[in-house]
């Protein structure tokens, strides 16, 4: 299949991205470049200098809200992609409203508590919507430990499910972006399934 046909098919879909940090920003850019028509991106945070080691932002965007900056960056890549940016902290209530109508939701949080909250909310309150989780990507190397696992038709996980961030094991661009792009790859695989 030609890329123009793939892009035309993917343009019909809406994907939610919960969090616009290392996972969310890189995943959103991969989905935009592939032609996913609408991206709903939610994050309350602003860009800090320490984010630039792995997140898809630039030095002149420090202090800007992440979803605003990401919308700007995606418009520079492909102005034809619709980005709906929500500058909000996600919780069990607003997740359902913000991501309603999304075909798939990407879990792209930093904290494990937020990951758990998002997964529980979508699995219980939005049945049938697949969630693509990122779990375990701190540090460097160990490339072959990064993997993808289908739990069932609505839950997929990318990462090594082991490496947690700490002061001595920070998240770095390569492993975070690998997992973010694995998540994007799962999204595209699901959206291309019935063509």
């Amino acid at each position: 299949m030609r890329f123009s046909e793939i892009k035309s098919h993917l343009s019909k879909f809406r994907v939610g991205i919960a969090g616009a940090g290392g996972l969310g920003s890189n995943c959103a850019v991969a989905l935009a470049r592939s032609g996913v028509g609408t991206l709903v991106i939610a994050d309350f945070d602003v860009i800090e200098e320490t984010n630039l080691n792995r997140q898809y932002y630039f030095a002149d965007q420090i202090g800007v809200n992440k979803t605003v900056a990401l919308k700007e960056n995606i418009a520079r890549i492909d102005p034809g992609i619709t980005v709906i940016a929500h500058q909000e902290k996600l919780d069990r209530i607003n997740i359902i409203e913000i991501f309603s109508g999304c075909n798939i939701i990407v879990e792209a949080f930093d904290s494990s508590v937020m990951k758990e909250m998002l997964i529980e909310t979508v699995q219980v309150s939005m049945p049938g919507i697949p969630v693509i989780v990122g779990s375990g990507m701190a540090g460097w190397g160990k490339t072959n430990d990064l993997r993808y696992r289908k739990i069932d038709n609505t839950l997929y996980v990318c990462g090594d499910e082991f490496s947690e961030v700490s002061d001595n094991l920070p998240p770095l661009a390569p492993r975070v972006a690998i997992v973010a792009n694995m998540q994007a790859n799962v999204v595209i695989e699901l959206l291309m399934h019935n063509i």
Partner: protein
Amino acid sequence: MKILLNNRVEEFMEESMSVSEMLLQKKFSFKMRIIKINSLLIAKEKYDTTIIHDGDNVQMLYLMSGG
């Protein structure tokens, strides 16, 4: 009973057991996790009262901070 735990067959002496008992017996102490039994998500508050039976498909996912 025999169950499928993360796609591997696991045998237990008991005929059935709660999720909490299974976690204790397997020494799964890491708290940030998602558990699904036969594709149904089990809330943390229900680990004591949800019973795992022979033939169940138990999936466990560890949630690591970082992203």
